[in-house]
């Protein structure tokens, strides 16, 4: 749990946003503030995090004098800041969170581990082994994949994995070791957790982040590729940081339909369509030229009404359509934050 402290800073952050990001709750509010805080690489990093666990942790940090909490906001005390900095120098720091949208890495890991186990046992001519207990769906996928492979499967995988691991080794040699020495196959069940921590000279709780990184790195290196492993995991890789429905809205909008028209033919509330566009503005800004949406007179009025850092703007409705007005407000705020904020910029799938 101690890594949680690294997700806070001297300036107040919304505690529910930090929690929502970890749990992969993709509301516009979470994504917007998550981007401002530079936390989008942590999206879905702790899907099973429980509210009670999180709140207990917050209270314990407040009691220790590391964190101040007021009205759903939390920020680090000077002592908390030095604890955070000490943690950052002593522990492994996640490197590839920007690819978190590519896949649920734990499912990806289960599927790949089972496939590699199967091939390892096959190559050692052993048919008496217990397959890894992964979901039925993953078992079926692996079996179908395996049946389509040639007898050269071992050599092919060795080649593909060597090229992936060589790249990973350049990024961080510890990750390449960890990947190979956690494989389960013929007469090997990998390092124990303690052994891995000792050999790689990291703390045990760091292994989680290292594993996440090595699988995300693999997901990234297989994304939109062809090959033996790519064929296995392709169905698990997201084509874009945007959920499918959001993507559909954005594409329609790019083809020139108005939001009202999209709302009508997709049978979605206008609020939902606006949320889609806001999500896209946050996650793939280059696909959404915001200035095309915003009427110039609104931009001019907002420039007078809202000044200073975008993060401190307080929305105040001035028209009789506050929904639309808030949509404009949020769009402008996102844009302003993206140009000013260094932290969040280009962190999350805005490249490729």
């Amino acid at each position: 749990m101690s890594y949680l402290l690294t997700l806070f800073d001297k300036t107040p952050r919304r505690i529910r946003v930090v929690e929502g990001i970890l749990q992969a709750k993709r509301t516009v509010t979470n994504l917007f503030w998550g981007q401002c805080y530079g936390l989008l690489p942590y999206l879905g990093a702790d899907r099973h995090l429980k509210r009670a666990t999180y709140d207990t942790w917050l209270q314990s940090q407040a009691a220790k004098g590391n964190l101040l909490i007021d009205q759903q906001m939390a920020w680090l005390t000077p002592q908390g800041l030095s604890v955070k900095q000490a943690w950052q120098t002593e522990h492994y720091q996640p490197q590839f969170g920007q690819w978190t949208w590519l896949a649920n890495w734990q499912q990806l890991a289960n599927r790949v581990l089972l496939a590699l186990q199967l091939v390892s046992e096959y190559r050692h001519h052993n048919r008496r082994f217990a397959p890894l207990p992964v979901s039925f769906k993953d078992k079926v996928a692996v079996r179908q994949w395996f049946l389509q492979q040639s007898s050269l499967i071992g050599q092919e995988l060795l080649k593909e994995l060597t090229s992936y691991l060589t790249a990973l080794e350049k990024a961080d040699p510890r990750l390449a070791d960890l990947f190979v020495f956690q494989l389960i196959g013929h007469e090997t069940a990998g390092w124990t957790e303690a052994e891995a921590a000792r050999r790689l000279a990291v703390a045990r709780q760091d292994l989680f982040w290292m594993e996440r990184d090595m699988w995300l790195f693999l997901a990234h290196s297989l994304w939109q590729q062809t090959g033996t492993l790519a064929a296995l995991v392709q169905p698990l890789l997201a084509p874009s940081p945007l959920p499918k429905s959001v993507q559909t809205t954005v594409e329609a909008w790019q083809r020139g339909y108005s939001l009202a028209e999209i709302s009508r033919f997709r049978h979605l509330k206008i609020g939902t369509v606006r949320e889609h566009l806001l999500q896209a503005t946050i996650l793939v800004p280059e696909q959404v030229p915001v200035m095309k949406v915003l009427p110039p007179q609104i931009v001019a009025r907002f420039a007078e009404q809202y000044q200073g850092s975008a993060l401190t703007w307080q929305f105040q409705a001035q028209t009789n359509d506050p929904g639309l007005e808030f949509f404009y407000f949020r769009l402008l705020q996102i844009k302003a934050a993206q140009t000013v904020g260094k932290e969040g910029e280009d962190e999350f799938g805005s490249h490729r």
Partner: protein
Amino acid sequence: MERKEKMNLDLTASLRQHFGFTAFRPGQEATLTRILNGQDTLAILPTGAGKSLLYQLPAYHLTGTILVISPLIALMQDQADRIARQGDYRAVVLNSTVEMHDQAALLETLGDYRFIFTSPETLARGPVLGALRQLKIALLVVDEAHCISEWGPNFRPEYLTLKNARQALKPGVTLLLTATAPPQIAQDILTKMAMAPEQVATVRQSVNRANLFLAVHPVADPLAKQHYLQALLPRLGGPGVIYFSSRKQATAMANWLEQTTSLQVAAYHAGLEPVVRYRLQTQFMQNQVDVICATSAFGMGIDKNDIRYVIHYHMPAGLAAYTQEIGRAGRDGQPALALLLYAPGDESLPELLTQTELPAPAVLEEVMAGRVAPTVLGPKADVINFYLHHGVTPQQLQQLMAQQSRLAQQRINEMLGYVMTTACRRQYLLHAFGEKPIEQALCCDRHQSNWQPQELGLGAVKTFATVERSYNWRQQLAHFFAC
């Protein structure tokens, strides 16, 4: 007579051919002979007797599906894995951990599997029973059969539905398996299954494990337990298991021992991801881990013969559970240690876990009428709810629950008696299970209060900790794929 001898010969050959063993463990042959003669059988065999062989070997001699009912959902996968490891037959698990749409797909292909593992709850579901009725069930195995008895510590009301399931499935032969069942529970099992005692053969093995040295170590407080373990474990050699009653403590102690001793220690509990559990079990089997700090979830799936000690950090809730858990030590027949750590007041934890306040009759009426969710009934909600929906009145239920509380307290007292007894612990155990006394040289700490690991034949085995090989991912990967 001639027929029986011929059968024995075949069985040993079959054992050698398919499993690579030359001799049966006690009770196995007697049980197998009866099953393969079509005789319904109740087998009461302490753990270590190789229960899974009793349904695995018949596969080679019977035609049809082998259906295994088990309450231990988390461990079913291990049992199926073991069959996969054996390599000749396909096995499948059907229970609440299998997602609904996966289950529907599975039901259509059930005929592809020789072994089907399921839980009583899943079996009771219409589509599942329907699909199974399409198959020819050669052998129905009821694992942990004592769960059907209200008199036992592990009573599960859903087991009461097995009687009907058996009648619907009409299996060729039925095998009831349990590790411990005193005579009155054995009888109750048959009654609840609606099986006539004269038509069921009973095979019973003694609970005594001659190669286990029994000991209790009293300490002043929990901290003293911790330091005692720290000093003792390096002298015991490995591998060993320490049982805890909470996941949190098992994990904390594993970390602490790992840091403060030179041993390889890992924590194991049902809260771990299945792949993590698989990895840990395999590492323990392959002697990469010296000590497992576990909850009671650990053990069933482990077929490890050379476990040298089983230590209980917390007192179990009864002798049945205790003998089952210590039975995992020394299956190879070599000396092993069963040690229980006791601090004053330890009995209050199992007491707390087993005693339940029965809700007021008014609340029961509300639940029965569906106006209140059964979850208000607390930790025993499943049991209470089952009764309420099977024609038991709130008043009868009050009596039943009160009686079960009394029985639970009795079992704890019996366990505490084992801790406190000033006489031989082995005789205490045997007496509790209605068996005759046995005298042996290495017996228990009541004969040998100042016991030392070496005198027990322990500690000779090197622990696995220290060998540091160099490693290289390229070599390892090439070896992994045999390239």
